[in-house]
Each structure stands twice: as C-alpha cells, then as structure tokens.
C-alpha cells in the first residue's frame, strides 16, 4: 500500500520572523495537514492566507472552551483563523486542508487549536474558491513568531 503521509517541508525558526510561506505546493496529494507549534512577540491570533487571496472569501465557525465556559462563533474573514501566537505560552495547531487540489469544490479546512493557558478550539472553515491550493502564508495578527516556532506541512496520499 502506498505511504499515506509525506512530510513536504519543515521550518524551525532560528530567530523571530513575521511570516512563513509554503509555496509551489504540488497537487498530487489528497489533503494537506499543517502542524504548528508557536510562540510570538505579543498576544496575537494565528492567521493563514491561501494563494495570496486577500478578499473576504474565508468563512468560519468555531467552538471554544476557555476553562469556564464554552462558546461558538461564525463569520467571514480575509484569512483563516483559529490558533494563537502568544509570548507567554506555547500554542499548537493542526489544520487539515481537505481535497486541497480539487477544482470542483470550495476548500473545507478543519482545525484543532490549543493553548493550555488560554483555550481549546475546534474550527470548520471554507475558502470559497475552486482553485487548487498552491501557497499558504502563515502569520500572526501583529508582531512576529519567536525563535523555536515549528511549522510542518504534510501531504496525505490520494
């Protein structure tokens, strides 16, 4: 049976950095999985932009628990959301980009995002485009990722 998951790229930051980009993503896999463990320079959210699309083409629904209550929200954005980039504590996120190269559907993204000092989050998001995903731009809402932050992109076999 074919190998089901392939590590496409891994980046461990040697210093602070404002953005991380995965480019020229080949279309030969079924799904992508992006695993992030990060800290940052402030108290920020984690954002992901697809193929340079800066339009309001991203929809989200999330469910969050912060230790005292559970909440849910939804809306449209100019990028994917879900994770955190905090200076005081480590955040981790796993994003699943389902059927990322299919040209007959919008792209559905599922994520789990956690910071043990803040909250745990699950999201379902949609990039309203039938284009294949070829670039992912990852960044905090302000400031930088700190040294030691790790970003790994996997291809899940078709």
């Amino acid at each position, binding site marked *: 049976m074919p*190998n089901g998951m392939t590590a496409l790229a891994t980046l461990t930051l040697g210093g602070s950095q404002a953005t991380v980009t995965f480019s020229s993503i080949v279309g030969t896999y079924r799904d992508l999985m992006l695993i992030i463990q990060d800290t940052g320079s402030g108290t920020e959210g984690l954002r992901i932009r697809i193929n340079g699309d800066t339009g309001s083409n991203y929809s*989200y629904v999330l469910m969050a628990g912060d230790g005292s209550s559970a*909440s849910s929200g939804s809306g449209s954005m100019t990028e994917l959301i879900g994770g955190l980039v905090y200076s005081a504590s480590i955040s981790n996120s796993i994003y699943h980009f*389902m059927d990322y190269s299919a040209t007959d559907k919008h792209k559905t993204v599922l994520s789990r995002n956690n910071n043990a000092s803040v909250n745990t989050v699950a999201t379902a998001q949609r990039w309203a485009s039938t284009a294949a995903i070829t670039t992912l731009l990852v960044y905090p809402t302000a400031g930088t990722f700190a040294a030691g932050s790790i970003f790994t*992109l996997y291809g899940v076999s078709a």
Partner: protein
Amino acid sequence: MALLPLGIWAASGASAGGGGDYQLISTQVLGSTAASVTFSSIPSTFRHLQIRVTYHQNTSGYLYFTANNHSAAGSTSGHYLIGNGSTVISDNHTSWPGYFFNGDTGATDADGSSVFTAAIIDALDYSQTTKAKTYRTLWGQAVSGNNNVALTSGRDASTEAVNTIKLWTGGAPTFAVGSRFSLYGWN
C-alpha cells in the same frame, strides 16, 4: 520572510516509498449519487484506522457510521459537542442505528453545490477482539445558515474485529457526485 518552495522537495523523492506507519488503504470518489459508501475486507494488520471524508448531501438528514453491519437500534452510543456559530450544544444517543458521526446536517444543495462538509473519523484499536470499539470525529462546514463544527465520540459494544465500514444516510439524503471517502491504516 521564509519561502519554502515545495516543488523541489516533492520531485527529489523526499517522500518515502511504499509502506510506512500511515498507509492509504482505499479511496472512493463518487461519480454518481449514492446513499452509502462501504469499505469491505479491511485488513486487520494496522493498529487504528482513519477515514477522511469530504461530502455534500442533496438535502438535510442524518448520516451514520456502521461497522460490520451493526445497525440494530442500540448497537452504538455516542456523545456530541456541536458549535453552530452562536451556541455550543451537548447531546448523546444510545439507541440509534449507527454512530452518528457528524452531529448535524452537512452541506446541502441549499448551501450551494460547491460547499462540502469535511470529517476525519478515527477508529481506534479496530481489530482488537478484547474490547469494544471507540470512534471519534472532527467534523464540520462553514456556510451561512448551516454553520457547524463538531467533536463527536462513538462506541460500538461489539468486540469483533472491524472488517467492514459503511457510511450511510438515514433516509432522504444522498451523497453527491464528487464526495470523497478515503480509508487509511495507522501502525
């Protein structure tokens, strides 16, 4: 800013050859509508299974996950945590004909034909004959009027090794063309 070009990585053979601890067993992509999708003759050589799904259903209605045709009422039980964009709902079942892996209706024709729901279902210790089977799912779609994200868990009380998995609709809905169902084995 770090740019990570991936075309070179993929072409250089960074991926391993056949085998490995996470393997694709089978993929089905629907070329016509269907009320169910079945994976049969599942090998027992893995530790866990994972089913990765993107689907569109023509109309609202429930979907079920059934192992080894255990569809009698009460064969499975489950719990659900569902966020619908405004509230978080917790629910459970003990008498349905299958593991209700999604928790609510997926994307339908009313949401637009390009909108697909995604689900990642883990079947843990599926081939062990000393324990009941535990399933868990991350599921959802983001579309105005049908926003849903869910974490669900399910239990099949049977200790049989799972060799067949069926994803099926509980009545009116059918899976649309382009819906995709992939089965992977974890070592």
